């Protein structure tokens, strides 16, 4: 691009006033700002001593869970949409014929490699029956790689563990729409 190209929009620097030229008032201004922050409220969370506050569990992306329906059965219909959407290829589903009347398939095995997962939430977006959801559990630890590959039972147990604190998102959103009040956080 040439310097006289008509597409170039030249923006001239604003002229400095006397205070800017003196430089000292600007230093005073800057020091005021830094001094304010010196005594300001700190944002650090001293993690093991105090837990971080999850502002909105509805959009927090932590450990996965597999939701149960009203009868306690796994909601998943083994459609493979989550596995297809997953950019990290960490979801492994073996689908088989459903023993129940109301659906054709169900997952015989459903495993998520929590170490490969990048916690992007695409599986949650893709799921047509709101079966897979990301909870606000953030402190996921394990002593071996095998332990971190969550199977169906483990994922269902995560649901059992978190269902009271975090009801299913489909319900929460439906309720909140019915109440016409915004969803409240702090349910972690």
């Amino acid at each position, binding site marked *: 691009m040439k310097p006289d190209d008509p597409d170039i929009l030249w923006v001239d620097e604003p002229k400095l006033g006397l205070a800017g030229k003196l430089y000292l008032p600007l230093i005073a201004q800057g020091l005021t700002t830094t001094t304010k922050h010196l005594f300001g409220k700190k944002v*650090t969370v001293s993690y093991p001593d105090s837990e971080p506050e999850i502002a909105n569990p509805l959009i927090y992306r932590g450990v996965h869970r597999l939701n149960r329906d009203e009868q306690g059965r796994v909601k998943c219909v083994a459609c493979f949409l989550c596995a297809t959407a997953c950019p990290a290829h960490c979801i492994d589903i073996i689908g088989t014929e459903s023993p129940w009347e109301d659906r054709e398939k169900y997952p015989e095995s459903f495993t998520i490699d929590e170490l490969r997962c990048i916690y992007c939430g695409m599986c949650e977006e893709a799921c047509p029956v709101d079966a897979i959801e990301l909870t606000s559990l953030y402190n996921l630890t394990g002593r071996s790689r095998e332990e971190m590959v969550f199977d169906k039972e483990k994922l269902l147990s995560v649901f059992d563990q978190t269902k009271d604190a975090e009801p299913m998102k489909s319900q929460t959103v439906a309720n909140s729409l019915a109440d016409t009040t915004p969803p409240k956080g702090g349910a972690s």
Partner: protein
Amino acid sequence: MWEALIKIGLLIFVIMTAVAYFVLLERKVAAWVQDRKGPNRVGLPLTKIRLFGMGQPLADGVKMVLKEEYIPGHVDKALYVLAPISILASALATFAVIPFGSIWPTADGYIDFVVAPGFDAGLIYVFALSGIAVYGVILGGWASNNKYSFLGGLRSSAQLIAYEIPLSLGILGIVLTAGSLRLDTVIAQQAETGMWNAFVQPLGFVVFLVAATAEAARLPFDLPEAEQELIGGFHTEYSGMKLVMYASAEFLHMITAAFLIVILFLGGWHFWGITGSGTEITWVTALLRVLVLFAKICLVVFGFMMVRWTLPRFRFDQLMALAWKVMLPLGMVNLVLVAAMVEYFNNAVAEKPLMVFLVMTGLMLVSIVVTAVLAPLGSRNERSPVGDLPT
């Protein structure tokens, strides 16, 4: 002989501990300014006592000492090893003439709180050694055989040489009023009148403060290192103990600068009403003087750290413009003002201190405004004439 050795041992112990804790303070201040808490986990070893992270310097030290002494294959080995030694040695040797207190009364006379008492060329010695410190930086940059290091070394040499001049001009005013190059005489003279030099020659104080910050290569003048541009500059290729030597030399330079600012301009150990002024003192006064001096040092160092997180780094042309177009003329003006005062109103400081302060501050403001209008510090990012750029 023994007295000097004890003083040297004590001084080196105190100063090196201070360096370690100033590193911690720097990290703490950085954290606080950025709304963080800073290192607060390491306390007493083998216990759960945290002590606000006071054990951090010890842990850092152990880690650095245990690191492998690695010398890259492409460096000039002799110079590479010599550079950090020279910079640390010169930084430490500076403290030989710097008084770290006043005097300690004993049964037969008194002990001076300075390693080399009665050294008449104190200020010149400090300057000579700070000149040697440049060698450490340049040698390190050259010996590393790395373009970033070399650029850091070059920048450093240009910067330090440029700011030596305003630094000396700031000091010349002091030398004129004190009539001596001895640091203890400078303090004694300020203590006698109770007028710190910062009030008598505020312009010199500003010039010296800026130049000392630049000499210590503290932000906003840390171009020799400039992590974001030069990946650490002259010490890019250094690690382990050699890096520690560089880092502690840097903090030593900052402490030296703080000592000089306090001694030359902020009254040294003097504080109105509590430290007395003469040499007839008790041990309480002697202790108070040491404490006052160290409190002032800590305040100045804290000021350096606050400035670090306040001002962005200068561009190199701005740095040079500040040195040659602003600080050099201001230093000359200060020198002329002080010379005129010494020549025509020699007793003014003792007789009309308030008057001297007001007149000198007014003249300082006038000269700063004049320089600001004539040589503004702003960046000159003006549009190039069309066709001037390579197309």
